[in-house]
């Protein structure tokens, strides 16, 4: 089946509905989301920003082993969580903890891996949210499988799979797009292009016209969006989800954003980028521009802002309490989840650990 190239090409410029100064874009190609959606997104952005900054503080205090902050690029995660229904699946990466919490996962469970207590802390089936992926792009194929299984059963599920710009160089990114296209699987791929894969800038990942253009080779339509404009993200992702749900196949969305902070608290980003570049992107902050727009349209006042901030404060307080607890599982759990039934060898090995611990206790 050949497809018309025009239908696959992303728009010439990233879709933007609210500009960095908080003004409505005049020649916008898509409708603005409704007021309720934008107010919900503002609350989501406020929460996500607070999660980032609280988690970074906890990492500095040593209460989290590490934290890969998404400060400044929260709009992508907020929009991702917001366009999902209860039937849909989210496939987040390690930097998408805010999206996981916005999907409904308790902070104590979401942050368990960052406490160093277990590799994943929540029940993926309960929240239809896959474990956060640390290897790059592997989870995109899992999203294709979840979506394909749902489609075979006639269920309305769409899988929304997140990855970064670096992940688009991995083979699994290409295999996922190709499989999704061939099987017409209801998957939306959201590439959060934050310009850096740890220290390596986008120019070293790809010389394609854009990352969204990479869909063309697979017959997957691509779209580019201002990744710091949550209104544009809601419009573009929402349309892609609707299209996938209607059986029209996968879509690739590239969101242009910027990682304002180092890769993690263990990284030193001054070794590979200039302060003025960071300062330029500070002018494009997703939270500030939506607040300006909402105030100008009389949808937000000081009281409204205080209410949203209070909710975020409450969550941050809960993070401080929950993440100060020792959540380390019982040692026996090391052997409990390797197989449905432990092998005889694992039963023996669990006894070895129990014995070692009992002798430690006796000392």
């Amino acid at each position, binding site marked *: 089946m050949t497809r018309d190239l025009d239908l696959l090409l992303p728009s010439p410029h990233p879709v933007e509905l609210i500009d960095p100064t908080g003004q409505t874009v005049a020649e916008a190609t898509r409708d603005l989301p409704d007021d309720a959606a934008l107010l919900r997104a503002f609350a989501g952005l406020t929460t996500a920003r607070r999660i980032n900054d609280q988690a970074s503080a906890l990492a500095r205090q040593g209460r989290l082993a590490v934290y890969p902050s998404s400060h400044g690029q929260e709009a992508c995660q907020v929009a991702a969580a917001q366009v999902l229904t209860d039937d849909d699946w989210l496939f987040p990466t390690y930097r998408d903890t805010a999206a996981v919490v916005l999907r409904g996962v308790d902070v104590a469970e979401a942050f368990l891996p960052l406490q160093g207590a277990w*590799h994943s802390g929540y029940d993926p089936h309960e929240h239809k949210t896959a474990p956060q992926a640390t290897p790059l792009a592997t989870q995109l194929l899992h999203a294709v499988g979840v979506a394909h299984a749902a489609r075979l059963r006639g269920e309305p599920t769409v899988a929304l799979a997140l990855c970064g710009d670096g992940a688009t160089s991995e083979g699994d990114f290409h295999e996922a797009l190709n499989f999704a296209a061939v099987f017409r699987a209801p998957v939306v791929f959201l590439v959060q292009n934050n310009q850096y894969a740890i220290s390596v800038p986008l120019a070293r990942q790809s010389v394609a016209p854009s990352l969204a253009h990479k869909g063309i080779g697979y017959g997957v339509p691509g779209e580019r969006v201002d990744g710091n404009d949550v209104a544009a993200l809601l419009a573009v992702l929402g349309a892609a989800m609707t299209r996938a749900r209607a059986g029209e196949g996968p879509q690739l969305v590239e969101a242009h954003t910027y990682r304002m902070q180092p890769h993690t608290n263990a990284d030193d980003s001054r070794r590979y980028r200039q302060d003025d570049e960071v300062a330029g992107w500070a002018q494009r902050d997703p939270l500030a521009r939506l607040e300006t727009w909402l105030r100008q349209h009389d949808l937000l006042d000081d009281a409204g802002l205080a209410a949203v901030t209070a909710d975020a404060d409450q969550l941050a307080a809960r993070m401080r309490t929950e993440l100060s607890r020792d959540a380390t599982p019982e040692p026996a*759990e090391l052997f409990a989840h390797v197989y449905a039934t432990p*092998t005889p060898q694992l039963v023996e090995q669990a006894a070895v650990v129990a014995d070692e611990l009992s002798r430690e206790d006796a000392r």
Partner: protein
Amino acid sequence: MTSTQTTSTRPAESGGHVKLTMAQALNRALRESMAADDSVVVFGEDVGALGGVFRITDGLTAEFGDTRCFDTPLAESGIVGMAIGMAMNGMRPVVEMQFDAFAYPAFEQITSHVAKMRNRTRGKVSLPMVIRIPYAGGIGGVEHHCDSSEAYYAHTPGLHVVTPSNAADAHRLLRAAIASPDPVVFMEPKKLYWTKEEVDLGAELPGIGRAMIRREGTDATLIAYGPSVPVALEAAEVAAQEGRSLQVVDLRSIVPFDDETVCAAVRSTGRAVVVAEAPGFASVASEIVARVTERCFHSLAAPVRRAVGFDIPFPAPKLEHLQLPGVDRVLDAVDDLQWDLS
């Protein structure tokens, strides 16, 4: 789990004693599993209209439709990665890697995700899926078509690794693998695909995790699996003519490993040789020697020996007979078991 569950309309295959090749036995197991459970889906390269390059999936698309057995793009990581997602979402995928060495592009998906999903989610997500891999030598295959790759998978916690040595086990073990709540790497010795034998499909056979004694013997124990079991049996036959009684243990399941059966067998004879095609260094055979030595040291009359492949890349077809352990290499190892000291 017996043949009575099959919906097959072919009377010759409706149960009881039938003559089958291993390839036909595997095909039967797939058909029966698909008929018994709608969530079982089969996919991979060339598995649809062609029925697989070894014809293991022959007729499945015709019988069950192309949503139950289907061809995929040619990308092994994609195949296994998609199977993971389908298994997360209520299906029981059975995927085919076309050849042993062609499974390597899927290695990350297998080791980082298939093997670890249950553990990283603290038991919340299980992956009931089977990765079928035709493996090992003996068919004169060209480069990259004949690796003995079982150690890579056996070394990875979270995977079951199963390998049949005959048609009856192929049928029984594949049905058990598909029914397993855990992921199973199912390694099919391709040189045995066309070996025909009488199979009792109603027989109750031990499941995954149990070894079986294939031949009783009193002087020494040969421990083998998959393609090496017929070699061990032939060696035991030759030894018998020379007056030496060799017992043969067929592992069937590399993971979980049946220490109980293997160690009881070795203790009964006091001598053991491990037979395997794979290069011996850091291999499944090494692990067996270590386990047997640790557990049976005081019953042993001689060090446990190995009759295995050399530590070289798999040779070209005209040289492969030099790599694969044959009867002579097995019996030479048996001869080295310090008989003069007993």
